[in-house]
């Protein structure tokens, strides 16, 4: 029973991990840009939810559009006016740039929101459903459902809409996309905006179930990294599978070994996947390799 409970917890956590990782994955997959500021963007989303909820008293889940819109706008402006100028440069340049951006955002968050640890009290979210001895907290189930639904709708957007397909085309072959009349700079701006928006949404969900403070962003970037490598770069279903696998593996490691092995096993899994199946569980080779 304990084992089953821990696996269920892992799956629920995995949904959130998928949502944390998907924005990171899309940006990386399309632009070959590793956005080290992803975690800071998640924190910003969390604080937007925190501020709106504490000031207006509305349900934190209803603040998701606000966090999504704010981060979408921020992401668009960042890409359009800053990152587009360096995105063609070497991976080191973009890494250094996003690292700087991360430090800037973390410290702006600290200045704006202080280092105090915050959390939201959502009484109904902490109640739980008991199914045959398995405890299912409502908040976690809701977070799982929203995370999966939004991640899947991103997949639909990428495959079924003109803009989405332009993004995908750009990720496969930038030059061919440009020749077909796609505005690359605009597509990149949109991609980064969508990635940032998903970070903002993940932030709102993080705010509901975790405690958080501005310095915590980096650990989410690391989680996103592992999930993306596990699931496959730029792949939406991959992020879901990667997230859930990581959630289950982490929880099982804490249960069967010791809490201290949680991250060791998570990162061990990362190394194994890199060795045995570098394209990720659901990844396709060309996503990562077309761009040299």
């Amino acid at each position: 029973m304990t084992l089953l409970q821990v696996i269920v917890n892992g799956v629920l956590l995995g949904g959130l991990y998928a949502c944390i990782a998907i924005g990171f994955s899309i940006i990386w997959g399309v632009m070959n840009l590793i956005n080290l500021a992803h975690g800071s963007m998640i924190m910003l989303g969390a604080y937007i939810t925190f501020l709106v909820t504490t000031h207006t008293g509305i349900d934190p889940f209803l603040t998701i559009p606000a966090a999504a819109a704010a981060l979408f706008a921020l992401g668009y402006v960042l890409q359009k006016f800053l990152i587009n100028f360096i995105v063609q440069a070497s991976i080191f340049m973009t890494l250094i740039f996003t690292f700087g951006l991360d430090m800037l955002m973390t410290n702006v968050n600290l200045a704006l929101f202080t280092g105090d640890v915050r959390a939201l009290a959502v009484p109904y979210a902490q109640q739980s459903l008991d199914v045959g001895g398995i405890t299912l907290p409502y908040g976690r189930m809701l977070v799982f459902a929203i995370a999966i639904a939004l991640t899947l709708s991103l997949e639909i957007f990428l495959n079924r809409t003109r803009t989405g397909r332009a993004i995908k085309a750009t990720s496969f072959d930038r030059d061919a996309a440009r020749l077909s009349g796609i505005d690359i700079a605009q597509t990149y701006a949109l991609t980064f905006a969508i990635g940032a928006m998903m970070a903002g949404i993940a932030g709102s969900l993080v705010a509901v179930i975790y405690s958080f403070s501005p310095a915590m962003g980096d650990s989410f970037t690391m989680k996103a990294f592992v999930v993306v490598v596990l699931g496959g770069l730029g792949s939406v279903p991959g992020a879901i599978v990667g997230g859930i696998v990581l959630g289950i593996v982490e929880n099982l490691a804490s249960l069967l070994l010791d809490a201290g092995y949680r991250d060791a096993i998570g990162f061990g899994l990362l190394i194994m996947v890199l060795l045995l199946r570098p394209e990720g569980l659901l990844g396709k080779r060309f996503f990562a390799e077309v761009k040299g």
Partner: protein
Amino acid sequence: MSMRTFQSRLSRAAWALVLCGIFTFGPSLANAQDVIRFGASLSLTGRLSTEGKRVKDGYDFYVKHVNALGGIDIAGKKYKVDIVYYDDGSDTNTAVKLVEKLITEDGIKFLLGPYGSGASLPATAVAERHRLPMVIAHGASTPIYTRGFKYIFGTLNSVDQYTQPIIKMASEQKPPLKNVALINENALFPQLGIDAAASQSKELGLNVVYEEKYPTGTKDLSSQLVKMKATNPDLILAGGYTGDMILLAKQIREGGLKPKLLAYLLGPTLPGFVESLKQDAENTLEPVQWTPNLPWKDTIFGYSAMDFAKKFQAEFGYWPDYHPPQSSAALEVYHHAFQKVGSLDPEKVRDAIAKTDIMTFYGPVRFNDKGQNIAKSMSVIQIQDGKPVVVYPIKDAEAKLRLN
């Protein structure tokens, strides 16, 4: 070069020299004799910035108030007080370097402690090596005091004394709360606190039914709580810093655990805990170094603990927990030592500090030969209706203990 331009350059150079003289030598000559400079490295940014700010505010409270009295009167001469601060960004290695810098570059002779045992442990070693006194206010871990150091003193109760009253309370309930579950972050201070709780539980005949540590930076404790739930604990005692403790409180509720008492090494009195958790913070316990309700009265300023709290709130904008007064007390230790020896010689001041026996608004301070303050013991607060109230020891209690 014409003579004219040469002259003008010469006069500019002369002016520059004069200005340099004014700015570099002027103030230091004027200040050197009547200002005592303390030095501290604090976590003003980063992970521990909330706590670091409270420590700084406590130091600043003393400075502000003693300077308002005209300074410290040492052998008939008034000395103003100043503190040189550096921000270690909540990083232990940086803290060590900054203490070294305070001593070797800034010439600081009297050191104050950083925030937390993690930084205090190595920082005190730097002070000891330079044979300069360091009075720390926020290092509760016992190893700080058990290395045979001669220059290190702490104003607070050390961590082995934290859980004693809580375990005692559990054993004094009728019927006693037999099953104790212990969980802590795998870090110096929480580990020592929880280790002490484990041995205290055994001494008082309670059963430790669950004991586990989790690594720093853990974001999810649900697996641990699943295991803990199966042991049916009456008392859960958790050790870690604010973020984890808020997370733990949320996940204890989510996981459907219902202990009769839920206690934290620290948490409920820290900023954000009650505001974030609301109903889930109710009835949680924390051992505290100090509350404004305790019957202490300061001998330098004449403030009671409550006077301190009110003045502090008026000046710094928030109601103080134990961090600020504990910091102020470190400076009061120096204050009394300076006056007693009538000198600013670090060796003599160190000897006077070792013989400290004073009363402050933070409580009494008297050191044993390890530099631990043995004059006071911990109280226990419980969050009742959103406010911390003292529930133990019974003689200082403001309210009766509530069980869940």
